[in-house]
């Protein structure tokens, strides 16, 4: 009985002493934290994706509260609505930022870009990119292993089986994780555009026109037809590659019609009408008439390349230790081995006896 009592009393005493110490420490080392951080964090979506450039939502909340204005601070997931709420809560002006989405700038589907060899290494674009130029003749395009799909925490990107290319869906919040994960920098964040309408060059190949087209029939060949066509100076050509500035672009679609390889893509537009008021619409069919011939031309060459490579037997399995392992599993029959060993032994003896006498003067 006495033991139990002593135990209870001593434990209580320890508890009280500890409580006092903790209270004093808590008072002495109290960190004053801005209560607004909690408020802002509550308003943020809580996805902790890092798309804003800060480590999680709390990181951004701290940065927002610390900063004087909202310049350069933007949550791509919550978008403008979320930023407006935060700005109102903090009594600030919100900086408008147009909603963005990821865009895959490659159209190297199996039909457009024939495979020249087979990649058999680890299924990762980063690994493949570090090893060699890829399994097609295009050294700039999509590798198709799906690093971007893995990086996406919003399930907004998936691999299309028929084309072997990633497809971005409306669920994209433009956090930029896929952009960072792509070793070939194919994915770009662009304005979503009115009614989700977008026009962009679906190619990143910087090779000269002929080389690019040989590798992929849908490559941008840097012919600058689109540049001449654009009335808003939205298109520029750098290193044989056209780029459409999404801020200057007015979505007139004229460039799409003149592109000889179909490298410029339009998304979410209604079907094209041939109206007399659009002068280019008349020109466009003309261009289109020449298009099949022009597009078809490089295809046979590309197939030749593919065939050549196929006969040359380049199934590419970069660096491969499992190779030797396979060989192990297919050992030559024991008899053969014994016979070979004997042969070798004989020749070794012969070599040993043929050692010559040499003088060295140093």
């Amino acid at each position, binding site marked *: 009985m006495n033991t139990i009592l002593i135990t209870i009393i001593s434990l209580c005493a320890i508890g009280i002493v500890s409580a006092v110490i903790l209270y004093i420490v808590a008072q002495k080392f109290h960190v004053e934290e801005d209560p607004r951080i909690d408020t802002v964090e509550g308003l943020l979506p809580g996805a902790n994706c890092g798309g804003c450039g800060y480590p999680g939502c709390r990181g951004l909340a701290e940065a927002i509260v610390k900063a004087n204005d909202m310049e350069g601070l933007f949550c791509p997931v919550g978008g403008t609505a979320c930023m407006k709420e935060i700005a109102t809560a903090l009594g600030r002006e919100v900086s408008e930022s147009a909603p963005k989405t990821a865009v895959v700038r490659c159209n190297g589907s199996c039909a457009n870009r024939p495979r020249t060899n087979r990649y058999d290494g680890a299924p990762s674009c980063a690994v493949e990119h570090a090893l*060699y130029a890829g399994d097609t003749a295009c050294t700039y395009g999509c590798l198709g292993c799906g690093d971007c799909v893995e990086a996406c925490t919003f399930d907004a990107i998936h691999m299309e089986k028929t084309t072997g290319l990633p497809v971005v869906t409306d669920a994209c919040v433009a956090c930029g994780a896929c952009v960072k994960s792509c070793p070939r920098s194919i994915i770009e964040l662009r304005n979503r555009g009115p009614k989700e309408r977008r026009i962009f060059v679906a190619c990143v190949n910087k090779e000269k026109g002929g080389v690019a087209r040989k590798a992929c029939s849908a490559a941008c060949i840097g012919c600058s037809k689109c540049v001449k066509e654009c009335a808003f100076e939205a298109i520029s050509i750098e290193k044989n590659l056209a780029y459409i500035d999404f801020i200057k672009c007015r979505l007139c679609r004229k460039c799409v019609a003149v592109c000889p390889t179909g490298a410029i893509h339009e998304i979410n537009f209604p079907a094209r009408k041939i109206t007399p008021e659009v002068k280019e619409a008349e020109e466009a069919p003309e261009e289109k008439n020449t298009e099949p011939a022009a597009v078809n031309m490089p295809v046979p060459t590309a197939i030749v390349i593919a065939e050549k490579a196929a006969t*040359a037997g380049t199934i590419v399995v970069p*660096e491969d230790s499992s190779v030797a392992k*396979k060989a192990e599993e297919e050992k030559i029959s024991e008899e053969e081995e014994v016979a070979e060993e004997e042969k070798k032994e004989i020749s070794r003896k012969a070599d040993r006896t043929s050692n010559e006498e040499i003088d060295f003067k140093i």
Partner: protein
Amino acid sequence: MLKSFKIGGIHPPENKWTADGKIEVLPVPEEVVIPLGQHIGAPATPLVQKGDRVKAGQPIGEAAGFVSAAVHSSVSGMVTAVEERPDAGGILRPVVVVKVEGDEWMEDINRSEKPEHNITASKEDILKAIGAAGIVGMGGATFPTRVKLSPPPGNTAELLIINGVECEPYLTADHRIMLERAEDIVVGTLILMKALEVKKAVIGIENNKPDAIGKLQGIASKVLGVEICPLKVKYPQGGEKQLIKAVTGKAVPSGALPIAVGAVVQNVGTALAVYEAVMKRKPLVERVVTVTGKSVKKPGNFLCRIGTPISKLIEAAGGLPTDAAKVIGGGPMMGRAMANPDAPVTKGTSGILILSEKEALRKPASNCIRCAKCVSVCPMGLEPYLLMDLSCHQLTERLEAEKVMDCIECGSCSFTCPSHRALLDYIRLGKSRTGAMIRNRKQ
């Protein structure tokens, strides 16, 4: 008992079928493509232009910086292009293309077969000759030899180790030169000893080459300071650190160079190239390449000019077998599959291995079963399964703490994994990312 390194190691099937055939001299091709970057470090700066006439052995690229090497024309003829062409991996690299006309060599090159054994050159002359000849490590790493022979201040070399291990399965190029050019290799070793000012050199050879051991022992016994060290067969004994451990019993500390334990390792091929550069003034313009594979008609070792298209070599070996599925540059463990069979032979091409689809294709990877086989075979004492996981999650700081930079990329882990996991592929990726992080931090 024979010496070997202690930690890890594997025993892949050797398949050294080409060990008995003499080295064949490959005819000069019609056109050679000589890459300007055949070594670790900055690519050489071109010295010729389109339309220039060059002779065999004439410099066509000069070393661009300290860690770089000179490049020479391997043939005589006309320069038809100085441009970018795809290498074996399909990536564009600067090259010099020479259309062959005759076979005229630079006048000062001694092309006689007569052996030269009188080393009269001084240490400085030797280093200068090695630098001018553009010699790089011939084992495959292609590190400029001149740099390796200039120990950083504060370090002194005590021992030269000549690497005649050739632990890669299939390859026999080093084996054949040890048999056919044994004297020259020993003279090359003596030249390297003089350049390093060391008294002792050890030639390490695995015990599966008793003929080479016998032949070199016969020669070395007459020379002061050169020893032959037969080694137990184990992959990757040809790795620099593994070889030092096997020969001297000393372990190179993590992150340090072999010079930290007073050792300098050079390949037998390098010793031969040094002999030719110093005694015959012949730059590195040709090398021995093993062309082999189960269904190759005439596998063998070929002495070919640098820049010869690999397809020509395959032709010489009886053409591409019908069941060929993969062409690998180098051995099966550390070599790389080629996407472009017209890529040229470079200073580091030790072999061409042709495999059928059955031999070549990887099995589908499954989950890690935590058997720790990769840990027990890692010759650097690392934990490959962990490094792979960390690489997949891009945790570079932890990778650094787990010593990923010590990985020698030998592939023993991938070889031994019962789940066929691509351990090395990911570890190599993690290693390059960690390396980039470390470099960024230093800046």
